């Protein structure tokens, strides 16, 4: 930890350039992340949208250096506050994870230990990572629960005594316990009902304003992402097909795949107009590099003649 150069305020927290990740199978190799580049600024919420299998979770795991064979990072660089993450050794990684970059996984609420109270699990963080005494750690744990609006009396509860939404709040509180600079969230609300989902997203936005961390937010739900993110990227088959300011992406999606994703969520007001999705079996291949069409709005050009029709409506 002593060798970290402090980055100037305006420097990006995370810089990913030309990142490629491959899965090496016995018979073939799949490129799950293909020459992907993006930056996340200080206090910025960056959304990464895409469907299952597009490589978004692989990219997140690469940033945390959580990939295991057969997944291999085959190219590019990942710099976190100026440091090259790909060259860190095991000890440096241990110091980086959780304290500087924390992650909330898709089914994170099931990652709580069922036979330990919530309090003991939170206390563990502070005694292990910060060397606090038991009683100090307990006080910090109570503060932490209050931060996500859970009654500190719940410290004595076991995970099964909490609702799904409450468990997810606990996990988010634990992720930000050590005040990381970057929080990676991979589909943090997918298993929850809309009402609880909205409350948790509001909670995350509030924590982010209060603590000022940056967020890499991964989901397939475009409406949710546009609501929360500052900037976002759409990923398809390992490639970025579009990146822009979230509001611009919603108002003026350029790539047909982005449009299909946005169309998948019909509006709740106005006339019911027929929408067209992506046709069954439509595939984009050899996606070219992004081109800047408007300042800050980058789009991968679609080759002329690509059939993208959604069939009959």
């Amino acid at each position: 930890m002593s060798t970290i150069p402090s980055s100037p305020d305006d420097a990006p927290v995370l810089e990913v350039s030309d990142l490629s990740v491959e899965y090496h199978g016995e018979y073939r190799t799949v490129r799950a992340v293909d020459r992907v580049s993006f930056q996340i600024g200080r206090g910025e919420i960056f959304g990464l949208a895409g469907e299952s299998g597009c490589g978004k979770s692989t990219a997140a795991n690469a940033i945390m250096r959580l990939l295991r064979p057969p997944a291999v990072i085959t190219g590019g660089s990942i710099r976190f506050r100026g440091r090259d993450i790909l060259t860190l050794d095991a000890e440096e990684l241990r110091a980086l994870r959780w304290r500087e970059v924390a992650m909330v996984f898709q089914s994170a609420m099931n990652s709580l230990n069922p036979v330990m109270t919530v309090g003991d699990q939170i206390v563990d963080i502070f005694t292990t990572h910060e060397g606090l005494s038991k009683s100090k750690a307990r006080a910090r744990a109570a503060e932490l629960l209050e931060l996500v609006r859970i009654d500190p009396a719940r410290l004595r509860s076991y995970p099964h005594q909490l609702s799904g939404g409450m468990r997810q709040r606990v996990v988010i509180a634990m992720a930000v316990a050590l005040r990381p600079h970057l929080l990676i969230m991979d589909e943090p609300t997918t298993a929850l009902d809309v009402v609880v989902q909205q409350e948790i997203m509001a909670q995350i936005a509030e924590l982010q304003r209060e603590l000022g961390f940056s967020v890499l937010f991964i989901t397939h739900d475009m409406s949710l992402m546009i609501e929360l993110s500052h900037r976002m990227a759409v990923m398809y088959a390992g490639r970025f097909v579009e990146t822009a300011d979230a509001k611009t992406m919603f108002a003026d999606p350029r790539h047909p795949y982005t449009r299909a994703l946005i169309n998948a969520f019909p509006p709740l007001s106005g006339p019911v107009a027929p929408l067209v999705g992506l046709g069954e079996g439509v595939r984009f291949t050899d996606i070219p590099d992004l081109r800047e069409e408007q300042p800050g709005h980058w789009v991968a050009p679609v080759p002329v003649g690509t059939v993208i029709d959604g069939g009959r409506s």
Partner: protein
Amino acid sequence: MSISAPATGTRADTEAVPDAVISLRGLSVDFPVGGLFSRTVVRALRSVDLDLERGEILALVGESGSGKSTIARCIARLERPTAGQIFVDGVDVLRSEPRRASREFRSKVQMIFQDPFGSLNPAHRVQQFLERAARLHGRAKGADQMRELVAELMATVDLPMDMLDSRAFELSGGQRQRVSIARALAMDPEVILADEPTSMLDVSVRIGVLNLMRRLRDERGISMLFITHDLASARYVADRTTVMFAGELVESGASTALMARPAHPYTQLLLSAVPNPLRAGSYDPDERARLRAAVLDSESCPFDGDPNQVCSRTEPVRHDVGPAEDRHWVRCHLYRPAADVASRALAVDTVEG
């Protein structure tokens, strides 16, 4: 959609509405919980009255655990109701076929499930699914007729003919769901019960499946009960939407009218929670708390003084909302659902302040 007498204020009726292909009256389901000798039950459905009319798509929306799938499972005869009647084409099927559904019933009412990976045997070919269904229900005589029928089914669901030889495991989620729909159509059903048919599909192909549902209604006059937690897709495909909460119906009406002017606090709560890029960051915890309180324990009903239906704390009285053609009704605000069920459903887990 046919114009018939609105189904509001007809709680005393035990007869089916003439235009309804399916009518539920007083449908209740209790699930036993606890051990072998436990007498505790959870009431999953409580006296549900519902009409699905010919050629309409009716959406049933609500959160997980609200009982919407239980309704579909009862109609499909996969679940035995504790009480109540199910009329299909005016016949009380629980009485006419008390033990199990006849083949005739099964060809009339088909179900599509949420998980197209679980509902199709991965090792079977697409052709087998379709031919088996058609053969069992005597829909094709001879090889020529069968070939014709299969070709027509594939065309209807927009799948290429050369996919007939594919095995289910080779198909994407969207393609599998189209095969499930084609298999249901092989019986020439009057009604399709679709239980979250798009929630497990990749988002970019969801609209395609919703469009297919609309087309089946418009071109074949198939009635559909569309069960979903997604209000936006309910509005997109369904003529009418019914909202469920804690095993009971709370509001129903033409989808666009209902979502433009939700009358029940629970419907308002659900609608306010749908992610919407047009009103980003508008979440208001005070408003949320007010709506929750109104759902669980309302002090007043805005329809107090309704000449047709007197407000009641104990009976789920239905008040009419807006013009008659919207067929929009809301359950009386004063009516309280069973407290434990309701608060569990609303997951009130935040400490205010």
